[in-house]
């Protein structure tokens, strides 16, 4: 296995394109190394993107935040204004693995590992962020929801990489939240996970909302009915109940070692309701 640590995305992409065999990108490595050591993958080339400047930074501009692909989760949590603007995204990523894993794991890796249960993805999808993708033919922006196409599969070409994520500018009275259900308090993969992102007007009426659910289908999905239940409401008990029902209805989970289908279908609604209430509280506080 060859190991490269290029300094630019162009070099990284060129290396991917030039590799005849199995080439992999290394960001935090917390999924990749597990699979490498378990012999689930035997790559011919590893391209470490942690030496690329544009992948390493968190930029805050008038158009919103841009988060580099190799930024570790712990760095997100340590970034005060990012945490204030996107608490749900930060807490979603912050739930991935242990403190030790937090020191390495990245949004990009969590997204491109393409697990339906990835903790950062529901909040990312709900946020409306886009991935800045670089390939041999230039850059393109891809909606987060379009990156994973199924368990372990993404829409990225073999010679493409994510350089960063761009988040929309944050208006007033807007906030997000991510909640998941796990059997322990830490160290588990989400049995269900829900990201909610919403905005309120001056009267407290919800003007915009996105609700995304994870671990209840092959990929994270948006639940438009849940968003509709919030938009136009005061995010009162009735609206929250409607979110719960909409999310349970939208879920099409499987039974596995982490939970039964019935359990997931029920619990995703409960968790969605609670996540929406948290996002609402935060939005009210975010005057």
């Amino acid at each position: 296995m060859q190991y490269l640590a290029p300094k630019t995305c162009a070099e990284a992409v060129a290396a991917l394109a030039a590799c005849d065999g199995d080439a992999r990108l290394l960001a935090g490595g917390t999924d990749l190394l597990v699979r490498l050591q378990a012999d689930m993958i035997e790559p011919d080339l590893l391209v470490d993107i942690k030496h690329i400047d544009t992948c390493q930074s968190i930029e805050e501009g008038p158009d919103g935040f841009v988060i580099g692909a190799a930024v570790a989760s712990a760095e997100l949590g340590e970034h005060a204004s990012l945490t204030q603007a996107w608490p749900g995204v930060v807490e979603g990523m912050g739930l991935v693995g242990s403190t030790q894993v937090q020191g390495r794991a990245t949004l990009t890796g969590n997204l491109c590992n393409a697990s339906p249960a990835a903790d950062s993805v529901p909040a990312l999808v709900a946020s409306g962020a886009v991935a800045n993708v670089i390939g041999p033919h230039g850059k393109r922006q891809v909606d987060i929801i379009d990156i994973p196409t199924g368990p372990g599969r993404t829409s990225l070409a073999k010679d493409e990489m994510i350089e960063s994520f761009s988040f929309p500018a944050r208006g007033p009275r807007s906030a997000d939240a991510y909640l998941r259900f796990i059997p322990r308090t830490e160290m588990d993969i989400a049995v269900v996970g829900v990201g909610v992102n919403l905005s309120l007007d001056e009267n407290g009426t919800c003007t915009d909302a996105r609700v995304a659910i994870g671990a209840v289908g092959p990929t994270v999905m948006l639940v438009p009915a849940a968003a509709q239940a919030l938009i136009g409401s005061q995010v009162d008990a009735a609206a929250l109940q409607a979110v719960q029902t909409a999310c349970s209805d939208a879920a099409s989970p499987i039974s596995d070692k982490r939970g039964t289908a019935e359990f997931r279908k029920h619990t995703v609604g409960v968790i969605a309701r609670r996540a929406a209430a948290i996002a609402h509280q935060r939005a009210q506080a975010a005057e």
Partner: protein
Amino acid sequence: MSSTHVSTKINGQAVEYVCPNDASLLEVLRDQLGMTGTKEGCGSGDCGACSVTVDGRLVCSCLVLGVEAQGRAVETIEGMANKNQLHKLQEKFLEKAALQCGICTPGVLIAARSLLEKNPDPTEQEVRYWIAGNLCRCTGYDKIVRAILESAKELREEAA
């Protein structure tokens, strides 16, 4: 090239090694450098026994490649005591019987030091969540958490 020459710093000392590209930092530490204080409990980042810091950041060394240590500073349990002068946490773990079999102890100590460097006055909850990735099967965590909280208190008092 399936191996790479790496120049790094371990516990403050310059170290060079050639390692297979797919070797974890843990494998390099234990098998190549003979630094067996860092333990392997799972090889998948689920137990924390192999905790080290890289550039001051707490990580599982089983989830870091040996080649990634190039140009970095790695700290392991072997560097925690200053010669025979134990770190406060090490002392406290002994005094408070915060270990039974001791296999998780190096990882817990490295994780705890990393916590106290960031947060000198953690709550019990903060301690428990910080070390949630350090599995201990012997103690039920009680004496570990107490030892960390007491170390923090004494370190604060000493700093004051």
